[in-house]
């Protein structure tokens, strides 16, 4: 294995985040803090508890997921799209690196950045609302799986996109609506029955539900199903990336 290559790609990507500290870390944290102020404090005080959890605390896992999903996708897609756009990808393609090593470097760095953002948001939430984590190990597992699987998804978008518009298309038009409609700010049980059924087709519901369970032991769907859905998404992403690498899709002519 070309460990040096994985190290330099990972380091390069992390350095990029460090050099754009405000954009990489401060921006998502400030946005999430604003959500806490508006939904948690201002509106949340007028909303009754949901499944026995104060509203301000209830939205923490959803807000973390919102940030994790968008950041994982943004970091990973930009990480591979930009070298393609500038042409510097030639160096990676001509180096003695396997696709697994490329993946470990780029996706590993994107997932790490998202993980750091998630943990900062969690710490920030502690300043605004009372917070307890019922199952810290499961919380960490959901956090990690989400970061990795959506970084993989972002990597796929970055490989697929051949212009900046396409790079933004799926995150803006698909992911953000799915997260907002996936129970970030409410319990699925609060919806009319027909919409509860429709919501079950939204994969993000399973992520948020499982993650919320690890905090408060309340969930919209069973934890086992949530975990299975995250793992299934991870496997699908791996299969797609594997196919893209095998065929050289948008990388090798």
């Amino acid at each position, binding site marked *: 294995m*070309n460990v*040096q*290559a994985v*190290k*330099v*790609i990972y380091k*390069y990507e992390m*350095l990029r985040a460090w*050099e754009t500290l405000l954009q990489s870390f401060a921006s998502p944290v400030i946005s999430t803090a604003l959500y806490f102020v508006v939904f948690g404090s201002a509106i949340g005080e007028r909303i009754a508890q949901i499944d026995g959890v104060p509203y301000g605390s209830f939205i923490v896992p959803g807000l973390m997921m919102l940030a994790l999903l968008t950041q994982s996708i943004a970091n990973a897609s930009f990480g591979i799209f930009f*070298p393609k756009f*500038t*042409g*510097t990808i*030639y*160096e*990676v*393609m*001509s*180096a*003695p*690196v*396997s696709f697994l090593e490329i993946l470990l470097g780029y996706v590993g760095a994107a997932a790490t950045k998202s993980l750091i953002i998630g943990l900062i948001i969690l710490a920030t939430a502690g300043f605004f609302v009372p917070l307890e984590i019922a199952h810290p190990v499961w919380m960490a597992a959901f956090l990690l799986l989400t970061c990795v699987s959506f970084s993989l998804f972002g990597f796929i978008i970055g490989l697929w996109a051949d212009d900046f518009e396409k790079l933004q298309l799926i995150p803006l038009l698909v992911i953000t609506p799915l997260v907002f409609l996936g129970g970030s700010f409410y319990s699925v049980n609060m919806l009319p029955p027909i919409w509860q059924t429709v919501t079950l087709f939204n994969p993000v519901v399973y992520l948020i539900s499982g993650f919320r369970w690890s905090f408060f032991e309340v969930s919209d769907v069973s934890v086992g199903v949530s975990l299975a859905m995250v793992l299934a998404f991870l496997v699908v992403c791996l299969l797609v990336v594997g196919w893209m690498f095998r065929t*050289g899709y948008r990388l*090798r*002519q």
Partner: protein
Amino acid sequence: MKSIVSVTNLSKTYSDGHEALKDVSLEIADGEILALLGPNGAGKTTLISIICGIVNASDGSVSVDGHDIIADYRHTRSLIGLVPQELTLGHFDKVWNTLCFSRGLFGKAPDPDYIERLLRNLSLWSKKDTEIMALSGGMKRRVLIGKALAHEPKVLFLDEPTAGVDVELRKDMWALVRELRESGVTIILTTHYIEEAEEIADRVGIIDGGRLILVENKQELMQKLGRKAMIIELDESLAEVPDTLARWGLELSGDGSQLTYTYDPRGVRTGIPDLLQAVGEAGLAVKDFKTTQSSLEEIFVSLVKGRS
């Protein structure tokens, strides 16, 4: 000499149907400088890109140091350095960091001493902490060479290394290429500057329309295909070539003051002594005479034109 790169029956057809390479076979000797000449779109960059692993071949095979570039890509790619045609660099990266990145990417452990030597050789040491976007075009090209050499390759591909650079920098680049060859690096460069190939190459390959027309030792190529001409300057202008000189096929210049005799320099008898004697016998007074040899450019043009 031992072959370091072997290309066998290589073909490439892009998804839009364009046939960039047609059944190309080529042996590149260890330690030589091979110049691949050809007009734009001839297939030079495609050939290099396949050998380096950037483009997939449609047919044929390539081996480097006896290893197949697909089956043993780790071994073959670790031996190769590539300087691309475009200035493809991370503009916000610093010079030192980008060279260290390239070295690591090719699996080499960090070696600050080697990187420092490399930067000094490329006259970039004073710019090591400078962001690439702040460098001049010539410096950026040297950074690209530094990146390609950061992992100490045995084979270096230079794709149009002096495209768009000034004469002084071009000569610096040629000196650098010669130094690299002396250190044992095999160099393959693509160019459409004939002067470049003539100046530094050991062998010349000519590609046109995706086919490798010929690969020849530069001197032999010039001897084989190059013609020599002797120009005889006369004291008094002529209206026409005298009949007694007809057997030499002389060309008379427009003003009638010069006679040009074209001959094959490889011939045992060039016919020059007889011609000079016949000129004297015809009563023509010779003011001066000189000889010229066809350049690689003329050979190249005649080959490519001949094909089209």
